[in-house]
């Protein structure tokens, strides 16, 4: 079946299998920042935004996204220039193996859009669906607070 999806501001008209998941479609199209991890809607590594809202691409049927707009982690950097959140993650040592980071960035972008000045508790609550097994969450929380400040002062 054919679907039309806008991904990171680019329009695609693509043939998909009826039972295909968005995670598979995006990776086939080269968006490898979308990570394949648990496949059970548990870890958040596959998080993308659909119409601005963070969702899990491992559990979203591509057919259901027909006519919608998808944003992956690749859509948040600008021609190789990292976003404030990505920069802050590097500066705060919030990434070790890095596997969870793309999903974390996508979720954090949605948080800062909804709430430009989140406190620690609000960040922890919003990001509880993005699991990290390396650095833990303190440095990530710190990074998001730093990015939020940089964005407010921009």
């Amino acid at each position, binding site marked *: *079946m054919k679907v039309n999806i806008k991904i990171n501001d680019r329009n695609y008209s693509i043939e998909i*299998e*009826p*039972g*295909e*998941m968005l995670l*598979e479609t995006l990776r086939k199209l080269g968006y490898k920042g979308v990570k394949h991890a648990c496949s*059970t*809607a548990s870890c*958040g590594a596959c*998080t993308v935004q659909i119409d601005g*809202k*963070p*969702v*899990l691409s*491992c*559990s*979203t*049927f591509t*057919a*259901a996204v*027909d006519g919608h707009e998808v944003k992956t982690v690749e859509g948040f950097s600008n021609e190789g220039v990292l976003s404030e959140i990505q920069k802050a993650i590097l500066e705060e040592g919030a990434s070790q193996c890095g596997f969870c980071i793309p999903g974390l960035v996508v*979720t954090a972008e*949605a*948080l800062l859009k909804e709430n430009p000045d989140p406190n620690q508790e609000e960040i922890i*609550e*919003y990001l*509880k*669906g*993005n699991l990290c097994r390396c650095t833990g969450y303190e440095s990530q929380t710190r990074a998001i607070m730093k990015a939020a400040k940089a964005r407010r002062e921009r």
Partner: protein
Amino acid sequence: MLNIKEYVNPDTVQSAYEIGQMPNSLYVSGGLMVSQIKSERLERLIDLKSLDLDYIREEEEYFKIGANTKLSSLISHPSFSSLGENFVKKSIKEIGSVQIRNMATVGGSIAFRLGWSDVITIFMTIGSQVEIYNGKFQKMDLEDFISQKIKGAIITEITVPKIESKCVFEKFAKSNFDIATLNLGLRVSLDGNFIKEARIVAGSRPMISQRIREVEEFVTGKEIDKISDEASKLIQKVIQTGTDLRASAEYRKALSGSLLSKALRRVTQ
């Protein structure tokens, strides 16, 4: 990937229902549950998104919620989320993560009749009704809906009364993102310190949510701050629980007493 032959998008409830009667077909709302199905026999998915069932309408005595309404929309709706002194907002926020609440729908969360569903406990606590299409539109209490096996029906709308009682939702889970080991909803109408009416619902027992009527009757007419110990003992005695990988039946019984005590304390705060 699900190895299916067809993904269809009907635009009326009637046509969705007709397609749904074909063998090996399944309705999709948010998609979270259906995406986890590993059935080889499944041939057809019927997306309910085009049925215009994504709304929250406020009427004089009720809220009408379209079955495709996302859990996140329940939290962001100003008047619905504040129902029961912010009961809806606080309790729905206990479910899953931001991502899950952006995907899961009210109808989908009820339709699967899952034992661990927090949504069913929450909506039963506030006394909701379900409208289904089963060849004709029918309305019934959520409690009756979950106890019946109505094959092939589509949930179209949930009706929630504008309650003025106080409600709380308690959940015990190994992490705040995990499925509940036990959940409990409490709704009370008070006359001063006395309970005029009570509703107690327990879910993830691990069986599906159920009203605990013996305890409801026991607490009615009594002073709320003097019944915690006795009510806690009684619920442990009468609640039916089971054992699964999360907890034993005995553990859940003990937990029910703790959650009820906590709920009785918090409901007046």
